[in-house]
């Protein structure tokens, strides 16, 4: 790829205070500052946000779905991590 092409950025927007930043999409920009400005125009034209994060896409390390088995399956048989695993007498109403 030519160095002249604008890199790709991932855009995260907090829609209001109290909520987390959420992935909204991506866009191309020459640098972080321009990515912020473009994100404002592309993803928040209708008050969708109060805060924006931009991260250059190449800096994101993602898990591979092929490894989903080893990554996520071990959690499936650990029912004791959930409150419903434990037996309580009926008299205990809230715990």
């Amino acid at each position, binding site marked *: 790829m030519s*160095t002249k092409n604008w890199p790709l950025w991932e855009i995260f927007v907090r829609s209001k205070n109290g909520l987390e930043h959420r992935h909204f*999409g991506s866009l191309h920009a020459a640098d972080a500052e321009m990515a912020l400005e473009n994100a404002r*125009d*592309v993803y928040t*034209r209708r008050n969708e946000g109060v805060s924006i994060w931009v991260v250059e896409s190449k800096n994101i390390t993602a898990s591979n*779905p092929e490894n989903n088995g080893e990554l996520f399956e071990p959690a499936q048989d650990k029912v004791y991590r959930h409150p419903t695993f434990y037996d309580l007498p009926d008299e205990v109403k809230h715990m």
Partner: protein
Amino acid sequence: MSEEQIKNLEKQFDERIARDEKIEPKDWMPEKYRKTHIRQMSQHAHSEIIGMLPEGNWITRAPSLRRKVALLAKVQDEAGHGLYLYSATETLGISRDELYEQLHTGKAKYSSIFNYPTLTWADMGAIGWLVDGAAIINQVPLCNTSYGPYARAMIRVCKEESFHQRQGYEIMIKLANGTPEQKEMAQDALNRWWWPSLMMLGPTDDKSVHTAQSMKWKLKRKTNDELRQQFIDQTVPQADLIGLTVPDPDLKWNEERQSYDFGAIDWDEFWQVVKGHGPMNKERMKARVGAWERGEWVRDAAMAHAKKKQERKEKQAV
């Protein structure tokens, strides 16, 4: 991978989609799924980008400030929709530059409707009302399509699209209730945009080659003919309401079907325009490619500036 392994993966893949599971960028997918999605999504993105041209033509001549801000916002939305869709397409492993290249060389198509000229202000009304109306009918089912990034982009697009149709219809209402000349202008725009809008919903079912596969992948929920009927049934009463006449002498309410019967569509015209012989094909490509080429120095300068800033920052850090 052996052929049998691929068959097996394809079977699992189809089952996931049938269970309404979404496919995400890094998931395994059949090559045909990837290619079909790149084709459809980029065609969709290109349509948004080229779609700015016919309307951009009238921004400076909008009859009032109210109309001007609305049209400006609509065209800006279309740029935004193009960008959502391009970046969603890029998740399938094709670069933005390749996508532009396909558009600029004519390898990729965009919606034929944008190859018609916008001759009067009433065309802004007709486009919003009819073209965006038909687009919404096409797009709403896509909010639920199987490819995650496409579905998410479409949810955003659909949310923004309904203002487009309303602003167009409002323009038509105003003209239809205006002077005889204004009403005539509105009628003329309806006459010119009606048939191309019906064609926008795609070839008839017996001529549509991708329908079965697209249904399976949820790229389509209804057939072209069903969508076209839905568009006609919802639009004709809207024309009646403002005293405009749909330019189809065969249009007639069918009590039994609870739907409108309509006249034959000139598919020769459709294919002529698709093949590049519409009134504005050359003009649209010239405008698009010209804008891209004239913008090259700006894109290069932005990269040079970013590099300089970065170097300055690194120097200060030493």
